[in-house]
């Protein structure tokens, strides 16, 4: 049974959506910082976001990229706040909030990947995903909005 859950506040969910609207029609991206759940029994909890620049020079309507230095920065931010780097968010402009094959090919396990659909500049569905161990697909992670 899939028990993976990702908890975040309405304020953070709105911040992510706003980032996707700000960068539309290009993909936005950023890091999710917070605390992991214990053995899947409790949800992962995102306590803050770190918006980051999309490092792609081209195809930013359908692609995002973050470099190793961005990952190091996100990890440093997390350590500074005594939390963990839990994963990443990005937007899909005019596309569904579901992982693409390109997402799957480039994903890392363990991380939560939140996707925000932004249709014609308006934020839509927000979903979260975790790559399966064998890399063939994803497990959906239920998002719980609090506060």
């Amino acid at each position, binding site marked *: 049974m899939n028990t993976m859950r990702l908890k975040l506040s309405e304020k953070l969910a709105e911040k992510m959506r706003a980032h996707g609207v700000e960068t539309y029609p290009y*993909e936005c*991206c950023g890091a999710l910082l917070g605390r992991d759940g214990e053995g899947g029994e409790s949800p992962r909890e995102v306590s803050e976001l770190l918006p980051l620049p999309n490092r792609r020079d081209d*195809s930013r*309507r*359908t*692609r*995002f*990229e*973050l*470099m*190793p230095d*961005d*990952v*190091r920065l996100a*990890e440093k931010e997390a350590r500074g706040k005594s939390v*963990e*780097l839990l994963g*990443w968010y*990005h937007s*899909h*402009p*005019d*596309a*569904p909030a*579901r*992982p*693409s*094959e*390109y*997402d*799957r090919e*480039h*994903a*890392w*396990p*363990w*991380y939560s*990947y939140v996707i925000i659909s932004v249709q014609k500049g308006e934020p839509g569905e927000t979903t979260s995903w975790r790559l399966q*161990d*064998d*890399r063939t*697909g*994803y497990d959906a992670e239920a998002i719980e909005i609090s506060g």
Partner: protein
Amino acid sequence: MGVKVIIPTPLRAYAGKQESVEVQGATVGEALTALTAKFGGLKKHLYTDDGRLRSFVNVYVNDEDIRFLQKDKTGVRDGDTISIIPSIAGGASERFSRLGHREYFDGIED
């Protein structure tokens, strides 16, 4: 003392939850081969099916990117540190089905 390999967070579950692993090897390639021999679950996430390091897997020897050294033939010595640092990439699909619909991993078309 061997070569220390720093395991990135997303791969620690496949390396006995360890933050770093000590291996033997004279090159980066040998050290990573030793690592994946010890922890088989890492291999799929580090390498493609044809044995190449995945493009989003960045490997450093003592903070130098091996792409600017001798890649997997970069020499390592006892006491060196190999770091594996992720790049993060993704994006909406540009893969189209025969009927011209965009495809996603679950086969759903749009």
